[in-house]
């Protein structure tokens, strides 16, 4: 991967890539693996980009697919996990802001797709763009976001002042 490609085609979107990768990992080591794999796959897939969507949408779609694939490998067969398990972050992986840590822990307890939806929503992506990235109908996104927010509120209630 050339430095130029990284600087012009990945780095401008690294903020959301990082936030997405963090939604699927709970240690710095895993996070770095996910991030590096995402970068590598974006670079490898660059010839397949047909300009039918924005480059950013393409990048986020690959990021999400890589995260889901790596998570699938990690969890073996338990791909769709409905259990609302609170995965605590490892100490050196925590953010400086405690509320953000709790929010991320709550996001990590959501189902795989919901993690991506809420991360993209919080990054102010439109319903249409979220639907393009996830590969679903934009009409369903709004309803789903409402449900996720209620779930997150329940999980965080009493924990954040």
């Amino acid at each position, binding site marked *: *991967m*050339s430095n130029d490609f*990284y600087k012009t085609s990945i*780095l401008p979107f*690294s*903020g959301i*890539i*990082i*936030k997405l990768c*963090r939604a699927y990992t709970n240690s710095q080591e895993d*996070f*770095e693996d996910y*991030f*590096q794999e995402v*970068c*590598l796959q974006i670079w*490898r897939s660059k010839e397949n980009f047909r300009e039918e969507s924005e480059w950013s949408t393409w990048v986020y779609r690959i990021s999400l697919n890589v995260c889901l694939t790596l998570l699938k490998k990690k969890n073996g067969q338990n791909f769709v996990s409905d259990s609302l398990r609170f995965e605590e972050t490892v100490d050196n992986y925590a*953010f*400086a*802001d405690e*509320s*953000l840590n709790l*929010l991320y822990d709550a996001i990590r307890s959501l189902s795989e797709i919901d993690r991506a939806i*809420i991360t993209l929503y*919080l990054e102010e992506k439109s319903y249409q763009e979220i639907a393009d990235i996830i590969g679903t109908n934009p009409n369903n996104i709004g309803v789903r976001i409402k449900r996720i*927010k209620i779930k*997150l*509120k329940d999980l*965080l*209630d*009493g*924990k*954040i*002042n």
Partner: protein
Amino acid sequence: MEKSIESIWKEGFLKSDALVAPKVNNLYTQKSIHVIDKFKRMFRINLIAIVVFSFVFLIISYFIGIPITGALFFVMLSALVIINKRLLEGLEKIDKGVSSYEYLKAFNEWIKQQVSVNERFAAFLYPIIFLSMIIGFWFKDAEGIPLGERLVGEVLSGFPDTYLIQGIPLIAIVVIIFIVALLAIFGGRIYQWDLNIVYGRVFKKLEELMADLEELSTP
């Protein structure tokens, strides 16, 4: 909860410096070491499996009356394991501290040497294994006389004009020599085929990594 999740998100990231992208230049080193470590593990498991098989077959061959086959299998497979164990020691000597491209190149060189040694060995291994089976079954006891002699007796009763050399039908000798020659000629290719079945996926990954790194190093 007083704050909305949107404000926790925004304010949290404003306070945090956690959005620094990890360095990606380490990626290939990690991947190279991972691919090669996987190969080493598979290679060791394969050698252990050969040792176990040769021992088990040696015992079984005694009980089913073909100890010559078992013994020859054991000798040949032991030689195979010893040769490859020595080759593996060479692989352990590759310095992990060099750049990933150098590391992969050194590994690639090792693979070429390993394949070349084993191809030459395969030209002997497969014919000898085939002969060991023929000899083993020839001398297998069949109601007091060796199975080979019994078979020749039956062939002679059906075809009395069969030409024999040292008590063995000429046609059988010709067929055996033909098969041995084929195995000697194509032993290397059989080995390559065998190698691809076991390590094909690892080699493919290695090729992809090498291609990536070569593309990286082109100005």
